[in-house]
């Protein structure tokens, strides 16, 4: 009976929107649907188009099959609260509704009230229209993005067949959290239409630029930022660092071998930092240090461990009290900068600062670059019988023989962090077999791309000189996991990874002889040449088989480019839809080879270049750090999966559509960038992003946001 009625309505509606002008039925009806049907949703004719059910509006409740009918005509709004349930029509299983949702449908198509119809009306709102013309324009946008025709876009996902069903479900899944966030944000009185539009109507963003900087924790650079969760909060609930035996350290350990890197204008020695640093964060560029000279943002500090298992031992299950104990830099981990003079700070002041953004993977740059593009850890098949065998990590195990995320400490390692850095049996590049539970070996610390430019030279037999020697212990075999570039390609979207010094280093490493920087300086030039500091492992796509330099030379040329190409494309207004930019080493703020000030100034310049581009008015820039670089942060990362998330990092959303002077507390991680791209262009989620969500929700936590909370498209 219900089904028949539903079919009848659906059939009538399919014709209805096309002929609305002449056909004027007396009722609207349909189903409130998502991933199943919502029973007991409150449905209204949204007479005043405010995306709220109000008592003066005609209303009803949905049946167990999600169906409703209302007398009259107009757009429909469904309010779904804790009193509603979600029913899977195939199995009959029910789920409670945890987040309040508001689903809408335009007057032209009320048959299926779903997240997609809510997106549709948001796209219409973005054009300030509810005319048929606005409806068709919005529908056309969705059709193009989803690769479906009009009828398919408007169909019930629960009744569609694959692949349409999968496409609709993917789209709906990507909308639900945003709708819930919009409902929560708009509360009782704010504009729900605007909140929904800001999150759902993303068509005005036509270019997304991801600038991937290096190795700073949030507290290290922005701990003093007003309104953000920073060092003031950390002081309120202090996190004294603990020694390796779990006791609270009386003082921070020294900055081993000195706080400053060799050859700086200011030298702060190990002795000067010994027994004078209270067990608390300290400001490196404090002009009034009592015991040692001030190291300004121009002074390069020594480097700090930032490795996969060390990072987890430092995070210590969220206590964040193992940083000093498991660092190679002693108390330096607790250092931070004033930050107010930085361009990063100014951008954060002007646009949106995300203060709850975590590095996607524990550990270092290698893995977090991989995570950015594939939300995965690279696989090394049969590593135990490969040249990489010596770099298998030695971990402690529990009573059942299962690996713990804890390195085995060498017998000669000092028990106290006050006496020396820790030493481990073997903190290698590859996790033990099956550490991730899928029977594989996966690389978690720096390994080298199989293609040039790579730190490994070509094999003697390689006449192309385009490959790295596969027999070198650190050469990773080509990767085949799906990455964000695959998803963008499948949608026909343009994208490129731009890297500082890419062309120069590619020329050096494919030359005969192979002569990578920094050894490659011609040496005869006076004064010395500025040799690029280029990190091969900061080029994530160069690890993937899809960029084989011979078989896929076309793909390389199309997608792997130099910083100079980025500048030219920005000036010409031809930046691809998705643009990644990786600054070269000396400009990326990595401790040990880059000072904070130079990288900051460079990135500010890049953003000025982007702002001068004709594409700026439809551009969204994510300025994100790849990982914490070993620096302490006080916020416990949410409990995710075995890969991450790790420590909190700075992230700023810069765009004409970014909320102004806004601090966004939404929980994000590196995968939020792939999630945003997926939502903007209706891409499938990378499996690792989905895995992260499942792990977060399984642990009682929330899924990561998609950064749309940072957006505001105006009134």
């Amino acid at each position: 009976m219900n089904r028949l009625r539903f079919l009848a309505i659906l059939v009538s509606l399919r014709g209805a929107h096309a002929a609305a002008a002449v056909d004027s039925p007396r009722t609207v009806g349909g189903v409130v649907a998502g991933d199943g049907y919502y029973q007991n949703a409150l449905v209204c004719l949204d007479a005043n188009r405010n995306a709220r059910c109000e008592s003066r509006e005609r209303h009803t409740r949905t049946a167990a099959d999600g169906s409703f009918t209302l007398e009259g005509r107009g757009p429909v709004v469904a309010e779904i609260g804790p009193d509603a349930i979600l029913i899977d029509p195939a199995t009959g299983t029910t789920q409670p509704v945890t987040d309040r949702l508001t689903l809408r449908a335009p007057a032209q198509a009320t048959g299926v009230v779903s997240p997609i119809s809510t997106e549709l009306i948001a796209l219409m709102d973005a054009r300030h229209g509810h005319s048929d013309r606005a409806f068709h324009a919005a529908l056309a946008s969705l059709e193009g993005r989803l690769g479906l025709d009009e009828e398919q876009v408007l169909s019930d996902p629960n009744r569609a067949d694959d692949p349409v069903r999968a496409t609709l479900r993917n789209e709906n899944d990507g909308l639900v959290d945003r709708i819930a966030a919009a409902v929560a944000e708009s509360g009782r009185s704010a504009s729900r239409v605007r909140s929904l539009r800001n999150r759902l109507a993303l068509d005005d963003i036509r270019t997304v630029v991801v600038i991937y900087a290096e190795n700073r924790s949030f507290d290290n650079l922005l701990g003093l930022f007003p309104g953000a969760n920073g060092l003031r909060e950390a002081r309120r609930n202090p996190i004294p660092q603990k020694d390796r035996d779990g006791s609270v350290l009386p003082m921070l350990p020294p900055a081993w071998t000195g706080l400053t890197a060799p050859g700086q204008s200011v030298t702060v020695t190990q002795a000067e930092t010994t027994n004078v640093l209270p067990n608390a964060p300290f400001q490196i560029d404090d002009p009034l240090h009592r015991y040692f000279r001030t190291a300004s943002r121009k002074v390069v500090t020594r480097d700090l461990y930032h490795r996969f298992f060390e990072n987890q031992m430092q995070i210590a299950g969220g206590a964040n009290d193992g940083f000093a104990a498991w660092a190679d830099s002693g108390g330096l981990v607790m250092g931070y900068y004033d930050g107010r003079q930085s361009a990063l700070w100014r951008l954060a002041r002007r646009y949106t600062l995300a203060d709850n953004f975590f590095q996607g993977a524990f550990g270092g740059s290698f893995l977090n670059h991989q995570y950015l593009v594939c939300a995965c850890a690279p696989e090394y098949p049969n590593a135990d019988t490969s040249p990489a065998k010596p770099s298998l990590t030695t971990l402690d195990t529990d009573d059942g023989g299962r690996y713990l995320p804890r390195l085995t400490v060498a017998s000669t390692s000092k028990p106290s962090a006050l006496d020396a850095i820790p030493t481990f049996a073997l903190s290698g590049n590859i996790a033990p077999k099956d550490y991730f539970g899928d029977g594989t070996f996966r690389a978690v610390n720096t390994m080298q791309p199989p293609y040039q430019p790579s730190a490994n030279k070509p094999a003697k037999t390689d006449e192309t000189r385009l490959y790295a020697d596969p027999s070198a212990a650190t050469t990773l075999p080509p990767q085949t996991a799906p990455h964000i570039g695959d998803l963008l390609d499948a949608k026909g979207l343009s994208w490129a990874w731009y890297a500082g010094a890419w062309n120069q280093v590619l020329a050096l490493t494919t030359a005969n002889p192979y002569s990578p920087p920094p050894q490659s300086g011609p040496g005869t030039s006076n004064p010395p040449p500025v040799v690029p500091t280029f990190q091969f492992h900061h080029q994530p796509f160069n690890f993937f088989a899809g960029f084989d330099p011979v078989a896929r030379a076309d793909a390389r040329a199309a997608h792997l480019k130099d910083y100079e190409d980025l500048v030219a494309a920005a000036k010409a207004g031809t930046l691809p839809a998705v643009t990644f930019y990786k600054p070269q080493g000396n400009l990326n703020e990595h401790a040990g080879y880059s000072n904070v000030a130079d990288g900051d100034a460079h990135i500010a310049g890049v953003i000025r270049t982007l702002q001068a581009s004709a594409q700026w008015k439809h551009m969204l820039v994510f300025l994100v750090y790849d990982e914490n670089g070993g620096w302490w942060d006080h916020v416990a990362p949410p409990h995710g999966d075995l890969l991450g998330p790790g420590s909190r990092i700075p992230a700023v959303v810069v765009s004409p559509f970014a909320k102004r002077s806004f601090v966004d507390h939404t929980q994000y991680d590196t995968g939020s960038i792939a999630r945003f791209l997926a939502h903007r262009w209706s891409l499938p989620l990378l499996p690792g992003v989905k895995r992260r969500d499942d792990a977060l929700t399984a642990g009682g936590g929330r899924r990561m946001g998609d950064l749309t909370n940072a957006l505001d498209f105006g009134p």
Partner: protein
Amino acid sequence: MIGLRRAGAAAALAASALLGSLAARAVPAASAPPFRYVPHAWGARPTVAEMSSLGRRIFFDAGLSASGRQACASCHSPANAFGPPNDLAVQPGGAEMTRSGTRSVPTLRYVQTSIPFTQHYIDDDDAGGQDAGPTGGLTWDGRADSPSAQAALPLTSPNEMANASPRELAARMRASSYAREFRDAFSAPGRDVFDDPERVMGWAAAALEVYQESAEDFYPFTSKYDAFLRRQTTLTESEARGLALFNDPRKGNCTSCHPSAIRSSGAFPVFTDFGYVALGAPRNAAIPANRDPAYFDLGLCGPERIDLRDSHPDDCGRFKTPTLRNVATRKVFFHNGVFHSLREVLAFYVRRDLTPERWYPRRPDGTVRKYDDLPATYRDNVTREAPFTPSPDGRPRLDDAEIDDVVAFLETLTDGYASGGRTHRSSQVDATSISPR
């Protein structure tokens, strides 16, 4: 001045210091925390400046040796970048200055960035994730994990300053001209440090460590090459050619162990990766210990440390890669001091395997006994990377003119360079300040 009476004496380092280590020994969690020889051990005392100043006086005090004639500075000569003052393979020492050790004197400059010894060293950024293997530690075999642990070795070695016990050292310290300052700085409240010889030893070593961190003396970065890197001067044509040869993996390939590059806004190079290599240096008859044909100095495998001998035979014969900063001030090279000029060293590097008869003795049957300072079982550990292997055309990696250029470049690594009206403060310390008693 101290007397240097005869060749063949040594600055060998005792196998175990009386002071186990400045750092804590493994202690059960419940016991009292170990005493640490650190600045501000008692509130304001001792300050880093006090420790550095006392460390300096200790460093130059020959009165702390059993002979009364040997200070740290005797072997670690400030006029030679805190390396050996002469061309002796090993320096004289011991209570009567009649003994000698087994290894040449390393420079003390630029060693403060060395990590403690580890079997595996993985540098994610500069070395791309490669495991460099044994790395770090101080002395030729890395057995000292910190400068203070290292400092305790010569103070107690019977071949060197020969303090037989902390008590002896304390007695000598008490008699020094700075005994009062030492007592004031290092006595626990209400105590006299001289009542506790172990603590005198510990504080002396700690003070030496702090002194050895002083940037002016030990970490100056004031060479011509540093000025070049700072764009304050230019290299001569020969020096520039030498740098290119030094860097070129087909020629000198020197940077594979002695990194020369500065990151354009980053750390300056210290010209060592703190790794360990077996070079196959010829046996040096000038070392008295070598009179025993059964005696071999195996570096990581002993005789000074034996923890790796059985478990890591691949490490036998390996010695720590020294910094090349100030290398031109040396008159003695390699762990056994077998060579006496840079040209000789470079010739060995490029001709070791081409003309082995030039370096190694012949057996009675006329064959050359290559790598004769290693037992046969360990000779495969000797490195065969460039520049030891000849070029593909069979010629040495560097010809004589190229060696001249590399030497010219190496001479730019000497601290105290002044140029263009910009005078770097000389970091040289007056060698005559060694104070015998």
